[in-house]
């Protein structure tokens, strides 16, 4: 409970700090709008030539785009800034300040940063979903919404664990920023349901980089495609990834030499 209070406190401080810079909101809004615009044009051109893509209709792919935007916003608001800070701290040796604090270090490094203006994408994603959901063939009931939220939470936790595992690599390799670019490239694949990709790529996007669980599975929940097996699999893999990332983080911290001491 104390850890949640700590996270909430960090969130408020950071939010207040960033809210001073109002102009950044408009920059972010424009960026989100152009991303949305190009995403929509891409969809429109494809649907000029076909009515469905591997069984996904226009409304359903719009829902995928909504989830993609929403999850991307969540990642860039909370996960990415913290992991970037962690990489910088390892590189400059300033991680000492976090490690010497009495709270659990992993929690601390995971909640220190938040970029509130990136939340524009979260709102944008929800708006796209609001447009997309009435266009779906299936009615979205409370069960589907609950499954969607659960899938979203699981996907977010998996992306977090994935990032923590990668970022922990910085303890040995120091320079990891290029890995970020690699992730951003891979994440873009989530704009489309992973089912359209060839098997080797689909496997990579499911287990190597959990884009499938972060975007496609929540979208499946909304479009009435989610099976109980998939959801159970997501829960299992999520638990596994959380455990592995925790262990890996501990191994990493042990090999951290610091710089200031």
């Amino acid at each position: 409970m104390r850890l949640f209070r700590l996270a909430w406190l960090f969130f408020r401080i950071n939010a207040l700090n960033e809210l001073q810079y109002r102009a950044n909101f408009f920059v972010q809004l424009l960026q989100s709008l152009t991303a949305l615009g190009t995403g929509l044009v891409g969809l429109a051109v494809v649907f000029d030539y076909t009515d469905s893509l591997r069984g996904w209709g226009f409304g359903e792919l719009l829902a995928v785009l909504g989830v993609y935007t929403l999850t991307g916003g969540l990642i860039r608001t909370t996960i990415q800034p913290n992991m970037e800070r962690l990489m910088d701290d390892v590189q400059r040796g300033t991680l000492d300040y976090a490690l010497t604090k009495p709270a659990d270090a992993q929690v601390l490094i995971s909640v220190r940063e938040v970029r509130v203006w990136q939340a524009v994408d979260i709102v944008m994603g929800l708006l796209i979903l609001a447009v997309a959901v009435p266009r779906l063939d299936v009615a979205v009931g409370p069960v589907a919404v609950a499954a969607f939220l659960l899938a979203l939470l699981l996907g977010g936790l998996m992306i977090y664990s994935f990032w923590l595992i990668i970022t922990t690599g910085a303890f040995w390799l120091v320079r990891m920023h290029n890995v970020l670019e690699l992730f951003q490239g891979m994440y873009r694949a989530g704009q489309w349901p992973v089912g359209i990709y060839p098997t080797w790529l689909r496997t990579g996007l499911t287990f190597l980089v959990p884009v499938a669980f972060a975007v496609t599975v929540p979208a499946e929940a909304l479009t009435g495609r989610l099976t109980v097996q998939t959801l159970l699999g997501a829960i299992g893999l999520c638990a596994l990834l959380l455990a592995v990332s925790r262990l890996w983080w501990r191994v990493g911290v042990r090999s951290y030499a610091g710089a200031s001491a």
Partner: protein
Amino acid sequence: MRALPAVYLGLMKLSIQEQLQYRVANYFYMIGMIAEPVIYLVVWSTVARERGGEVGGYTAGTFAAYYIVWTLVRNMNIVFTPYGWEWRIRHGRLAIDLLRPIHPLHYDVAYFGGWKFVVILMWLPIAAVLILVFRPTLDPTLLEVGVFALAIWGAFFIRTMALWLLGMISFWTVRVGAIFELYFAAELLLSGRLVPLSLLPDWAERLADFLPFRWTFGYPIEALIGTLPPAELLGGLLAQLGWIIAGLVAVRLLWGRAVRRFSAVGM
């Protein structure tokens, strides 16, 4: 003026040596870039298959060729970013450049031009893997290969100057981010980067004829994959030349004004 070729040679050697040091960083960057065309490729080959194998003259095989050649053209398209101008002005780099006897455009062309040799070299294994995985239908004639070899450099020059002009707006206002965003969005849609231009609606394709974007992206790709009739194949090089000259004139005009403005606020 006689010293210019020597300056170019020196700067290009320098950038080649510098970039060869950062092989791993370069590779990560190039591999991260591959996700984008692979996504487009998968989507469009799926559409082609759902329509019985063909869409707008493209099959899964020609789409593969289009988006694999795309990766090299995209790399040739990387030039000094307009976002960098603010840094150049703020950190006084420009003041140093202005003291030198030759136009700063030469430095960027030579530096990035040299880097391209490293990029092309490093691209070859990536292309080999993509070819093995996606089996493109690619059977260019000697003429097409020759035109392509010229066209990718034409694309490099056009984009260098287009982004220079864009970046120079930084001399007049600091709120340039919005302009850049819109420019890049228009470029993405109307260059052939997102999708071959012939698949766009007619009005959009006609609009692209009046803009430089297609000559930096779609044209070199189409030249190599063989979708252009001979007249357009060679005519494209002339169009590129036209845009290069227009770019040079515009840079010359704007640069004079920009520098006057810079000395007013800078030193």
